[in-house]
């Protein structure tokens, strides 16, 4: 299949992001003064916004079409994920601008790396071929390793990068092994072709193909940090610069979830049922992951580690949604999953923005009981935004978190998974407990009379990020219909 030049317009988001990545790399090399480097952050912001605007425009006319011999497919599904990825990168850029201005090590390479990683993500969510999925995910991860160790003189940064890199490398190997096994059974790596062959296998589920799927799932779930593949996450978050932790928490999780949904719903849908089917597996992993993450989060003293374990729990919620995937548009949990991911981008970016801001008070370690006391009184607006984000993370109504979980539970109940719904609700209570604890601490008056009125400069980018995320977390919870409609439309375009 030849490539029509006009059809390449459909890949313009990816092209734009790649162009901006290279541009920032060049400009970063050329600029020597701090002031000129400062503009690189704004350039990254511009690149993100331009790509986002293009994606919005493309949404209105896009038609499902394949390129590069069927390896890349542009549809509303891929566009939804592209928009989420670009939005999360815009959020992370806002964080990075504030974060690196403080450490005066702002360089072009950071934004170039982030955009390269984003490019990998954009390709991964549009891929319908196992090889291109693998390559895109690698493109996404390798710059992220570099970003994690970006403040290379900090031991903790190096440690966290190593802890990120080693499981990442193993996960790549597992993914590749799974792809090889799948190729051995189907003699093709194209997902649509596999989907056509799978029901015709002599035995369904085929044992070798199941093994291949299992390896691929292990590889993907490691990147999503679902229990039992989560061990790298807390240390990585704690040591990585907060904007990078936000990037790993949002962008990588989203891209992996997009691939996961595609794999389960298209080529391997025939493997859903039965004792060793993926539906039961996802059901089990969801329970394990959400319960483990939330229970361990209770005892965390460090805010970043608490967010890390909450991220593991949220991976569990995402897996719960994957357990309700079907190929019919009516009872398909994919739309709920997509909404959930959008919610997660908003909340995670907002909370990491607060973490970056707290870092400016000279409290790098962020022990909840010690360092956060009285924070709500320093700036009431900020305290309110922080509380809203925490409540949204816990899923209290009427925030976006509640509606996102409500939709997943709705589908779970529709599939008769009452037990999983109850476990999920119990987990929401646990999450509510540790999030409320933080809210109670930030409004605890300090023992000394003088409140910490440190003369802290609030960077505009950070305030914008926190305000935007808090407002969205509340607004999209009260009026979820538009986002929900978009998510459903994106999910429907899978078939």
């Amino acid at each position, binding site marked *: 299949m030849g490539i029509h030049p006009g059809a390449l317009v459909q890949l313009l988001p990816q092209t734009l992001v790649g162009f901006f990545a290279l541009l920032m790399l060049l400009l970063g090399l050329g600029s020597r003064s701090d002031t000129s480097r400062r503009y690189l952050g704004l350039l990254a912001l511009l690149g993100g916004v331009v790509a986002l605007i293009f994606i919005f425009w493309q949404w209105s006319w896009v038609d499902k079409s394949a390129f590069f011999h069927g390896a890349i497919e542009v549809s509303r599904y891929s566009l939804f994920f592209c928009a989420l990825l670009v939005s999360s990168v815009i959020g992370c850029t806002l964080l990075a601008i504030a974060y690196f201005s403080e450490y005066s090590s702002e360089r072009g390479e950071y934004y170039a790396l982030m955009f390269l990683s984003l490019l990998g993500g954009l390709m991964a969510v549009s891929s319908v071929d196992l090889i291109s999925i693998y390559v895109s995910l690698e493109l996404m991860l390798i710059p992220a390793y570099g970003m994690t160790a970006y403040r290379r003189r900090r031991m903790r940064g190096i440690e966290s990068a190593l802890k990120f890199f080693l499981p990442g490398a193993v996960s790549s190997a597992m993914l590749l092994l799974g792809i090889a096994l799948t190729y051995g059974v189907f003699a093709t790596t194209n997902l649509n072709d596999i989907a056509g062959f799978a029901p015709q296998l002599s035995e369904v589920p085929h044992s070798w193909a199941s093994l291949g799927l299992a390896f691929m799932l292990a590889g993907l779930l490691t990147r999503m940090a679902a229990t039992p593949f989560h061990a790298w996450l807390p240390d990585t978050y704690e040591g990585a610069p907060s904007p990078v932790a936000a990037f790993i928490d949002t962008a990588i999780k989203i891209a992996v979830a997009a691939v996961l949904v595609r794999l389960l719903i298209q080529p391997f849908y025939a493997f859903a049922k039965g004792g060793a089917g993926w539906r039961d597996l996802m059901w089990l992993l969801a329970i394990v992951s959400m319960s483990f993450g939330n229970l361990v989060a209770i005892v965390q003293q460090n805010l970043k580690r608490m967010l890390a374990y909450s991220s593991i729990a949220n991976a569990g919620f995402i897996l719960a949604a994957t357990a309700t995937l079907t190929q019919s548009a009516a009872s398909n949990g994919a739309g709920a999953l997509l909404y959930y991911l959008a919610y997660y981008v908003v909340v995670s970016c907002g909370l990491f923005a607060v973490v970056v801001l707290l870092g400016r008070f000279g409290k790098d370690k962020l022990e909840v009981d010690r360092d956060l006391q009285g924070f709500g009184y320093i700036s009431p607006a900020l305290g309110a935004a922080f509380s809203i984000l925490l409540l949204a993370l816990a899923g209290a109504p009427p925030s976006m978190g509640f509606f996102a979980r409500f939709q997943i539970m709705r589908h779970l109940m529709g599939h008769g998974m009452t037990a999983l719904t109850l476990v999920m*609700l119990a987990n929401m209570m646990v999450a509510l407990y540790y999030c409320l604890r933080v809210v109670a601490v930030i409004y605890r008056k300090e023992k000394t009379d003088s409140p910490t009125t440190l003369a802290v400069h609030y960077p505009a980018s950070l305030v914008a990020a926190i305000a935007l995320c808090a407002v969205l977390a509340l607004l999209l919870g009260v009026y979820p219909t538009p986002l929900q409609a978009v998510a459903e439309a994106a999910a429907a375009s899978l078939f």
Partner: protein
Amino acid sequence: MELESLHLLSLMIFLPLAGALMIGILPAREYALARGFGLAWSGAVFILGILLWLGFDPNTPGLQFVEKASWIPSLGIGYHLAVDGLSLPFILLTAFIVPLSIVASIDALKKVAKGFVLSVLLFESAALGAFASQDLFLFYIFSEFALIPLFVFIAIWGDRNRSYSAIKLFLYPAAASCLLLVAMLWLYFENATQFKSYSTDLATLAATALPQGTQMLLFSAFAVAFMVRSAIFPFHSWLTDAIDAAPPAATILIPALLLKLGLYGMARVALPLFPLGADSMLTIVASFAVVGFVWCALAALAQKRLRRMVAYLLASQMGLAFFGLAVMNVEGVSGAFYLAISHGIAGTLLLIVVGLYERANADDRIDANRHPLRFLPWLTFMLTMAALGLGGLPVAAGFPGVFYVLYGAIGHNGLSGSLPLALISVFGLLVFVCGLAWMVQRMVFGSYTAPERPLRIKLREYLLLVPLALLILLLGLFPSYFVRGLENSATQLVDGYRDKVVLEDSQEEPQIAVQNITKEREE
């Protein structure tokens, strides 16, 4: 009626929200301004409430002031508000108590006026929304959201053990509501399969045909959620901890309004949705309620701190109200609602007086008071009024409630085992009244030394108590004038419930059903 076109209910719900946003942007140090705004907004809501009360037709038992719009159409979730005789008293109670609680906080919570007023208004919005909702999802959202400002009250303005109490206040009802959520989703899908379209509207959900076993399961989930919300035994400890943790001025709204959400939810949601399940479970609910009534009254006698004693007394009376509702005849239901209203008003008065008492003694240990109220005859009078109102003595507000509940329970009805329960609750009432009397005695007399520095009570604080005391008297004398249309709506609720139960029973055991019908006709 032109009032119908005013969207009074929406106005009442969203005015406080707008007020909260406006107060949010005021500078933090403008205490007086924040309070003034809060009072103005909640006062406006109260005036709207009066309009609602005047426009309400007490002879129509059904829904009035209906507002209906779609909210999340793909899930069938609607924005459906309405009032009837069951919700009107609580809406008025909310609109009445909220401005008073802002005034009561002026001296108790001086420097935190902005945040406090803001949270009070948010709570008012949520509570009014919950009382007016005719959509289950909307009701759930509003009643959960109501917990957040209350959490903030305790977490920020509490003075002892507040983190623990605040989190408990949130988690107890919220965890129980999770059961409700699952049951709600279950019902939602059953309804969707039967009607081929999704809906969370209460009227539509009530039409779902469910077997008795399922109904029992779902009713239990709803009942537990509402019992926790109303602090019914054995789920009352969050209430006592919450009231113990903060100055009384900050906790007025919890017993006065939050507890009512449980009772109201039971009558509005659980009983009409699952009449068959309720029919076989109500005796258990009633038993817990009555045991709680006695238990909490006894526990109140053992308390060493005034706040805890008041908390137990307040928790105790909700048990009696729940018992009245569980009896499920017109007298019982009306009694439960009368009792809930008088509980709200007399409880508020009691908490305000306790707050002043604490200020006088700088402590709330009951036996350590060096400044008994007998030197403040006006406060003594108010305290006695509150005790009379709670205790249900004739001519005071609690009387119609207590009388109707016991009358309903002892008289004719369908609840098995209500007679022994009624006898136990008569005993409970005795303990309860003794507890009240003992509390009054210890607060009023206490030690015999005259105080060196008498407590100065401002005129404003005196005046604040007047409308409450007046209302206690008026509600005792003319209950049905103020609580309009309650009995009509209660009759409708009970008739609808009995019809469904009898209808279902008649398919299995026609003879008993006929007997039931004839029995009811005779009555």
